[in-house]
């Protein structure tokens, strides 16, 4: 009898699941980079060396994720669903996905605002 098959990366995700717990204090989230609003919401595609390219943004590339990670949740699935594949489910979800997509953008926006406010207070 055979059982489940998964991506090799999935096996890794179940092994290091405990170490992947993330909170809002995750290193790097408090940093503010000198990027434009537009770039933070929809960063331009970059080539392998990290330089921005002139390639036209695809609809998926416009789906940049929210910045504040509030809830601590363990990553416990044995199969890695893939970041792009998860986001695509929102894009392909049709009308049912509009609310989720709006929230993704809204959280992204408010997180950047909060970061800038925090940065201003520090100064």
């Amino acid at each position: 009898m055979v059982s489940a098959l998964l991506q090799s990366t999935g096996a890794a995700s179940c092994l290091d699941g405990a170490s992947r717990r993330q909170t809002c204090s995750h290193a790097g989230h408090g940093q503010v980079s000198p990027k434009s609003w537009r770039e933070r919401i929809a960063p331009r595609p970059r080539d392998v060396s990290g330089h921005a390219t002139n390639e036209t943004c695809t609809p998926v590339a416009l789906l940049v994720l929210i910045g504040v990670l509030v809830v601590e949740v363990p990553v416990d699935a044995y199969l890695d669903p893939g970041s792009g594949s998860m986001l695509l489910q929102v894009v392909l979800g049709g009308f049912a996905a509009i609310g989720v997509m709006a929230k993704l953008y809204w959280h992204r926006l408010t997180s950047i605002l909060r970061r800038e406010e925090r940065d201003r207070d520090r100064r």
Partner: protein
Amino acid sequence: MSVRRSAPNFEAGSFRDPDTRVFHHNGAVFRCLTERARSDWMRLAATDFYARFTGQGRLIPTDQVVDDTGLPDLGPKWTAVLKHQRIPMISYPYEWSFGMLRDAALLQLDLMLASLDEGMTLKDATPFNVQWIGSRPTFIDIGSFTAYEPGEPWAGYRQFCEQFLYPLLLQAYRNVPFHPWLRGSVEGIKAEECLALLSLRDYVRPAVLGDVYLHAKAQARFQASDRNVKQDLRVAGFSSQLIKKNVGRLRRIVERLRWSPARSTWSEYEHEHKYETEDLQAKSDFVSRVLAPRRWSIVWDLGCNTGTYARLASEHAEYVLALDVDHLVVDRLYRALAQEGNTSILPLVGDIANPSPGLGWRGRERRPLVDRGCPELILCLALVHHLVIGSNIPLGELIQWLAGFGADLVVEFAGRGDPMVERLLRHRDVQHVDYSQAAVEAALTQHFASVTQEPLTCGTRTLYHARATA
């Protein structure tokens, strides 16, 4: 005095999900569960869809073992044991026809929808979790069901695309056979690989723009991302409703996929062969005489074509494997069997000159074809000349390989002068001097206990029944 219990004989292909593991014991199939998996099983067993799908034969019948006396020592990790009904013969997606892969995909999606309706989901979406009882697909991985956590996206979406959707799309839209690809890559076909084979015209066809093009772009875009997308989606209010939309959408796409070429190398054999009617009757009578005296457990019909002799065999056997190298004839046979609701003939695509090998981790995760069945009788009708002349397999080695199963053998031998043999030899410089009736009889006599024969009236073909050595 305590009796030391044996170590479990774990199934080599069931290591991926750390919460469940399949093992074999005294010819039965068991699955051990961790505490988390046990809790999921309890929840699953209480659902309506579990009873419904099991009743329809679309979920493997399973019981929880109450008394584990006599079972191997499993250790503290495993807190419960299930016993599954045994599948007559394990097969893999690279041996299925288009219709089989499509119907297995529909079963996967139906289970996904049904489980979401009752607060559960599936951890993965691989065709290896589906097996066949004849022409009926049955989901076997009970350990795949788990409680749905609000906010979770569909974990198996990418896997569904790579192992179900893209192989089906390539076969349906581009006539690219998925068998060699899935056999070469047990993880499936990547979105960018699928995209590379599609033409501009295909972009307007269902699933291509969203599930292939955008999927490939999304994966490339977010491949190096460190963000916890799962968590972001949870915070944004991702719900099971969204998964249902996508699963329902994919179900409609998959259901409409068709692959029906007009003909293939062997699809018209039934109408174009050179048999006289009386020879066909004599062949059928000979096979029936071999079959009739007893009840056979498993019969293999190699080179089954339309399945005429597989059907004949199924009247005297518990289970029949109908194998043919021609995808179209197997797909047509599957469709006919599925329409009848036949659960005793398993149609598979396979080449005897290149049977499925051991694949995956340690080469044992997916077992070779020859290790997955134990036939009591093998039918090898109008096939030997194709293997010996067409694939240059030495005649003696072929008979020795067939004898290695320890089964009775029915062989139809086409000698020189037969129109098909002449056609196979016409462009060959090597004239296969060892291909003769005397050679086949010598090999059968050497490897089997006894041999009976019957020549057909055409004068170029002979039928043999070789009995296995005890």
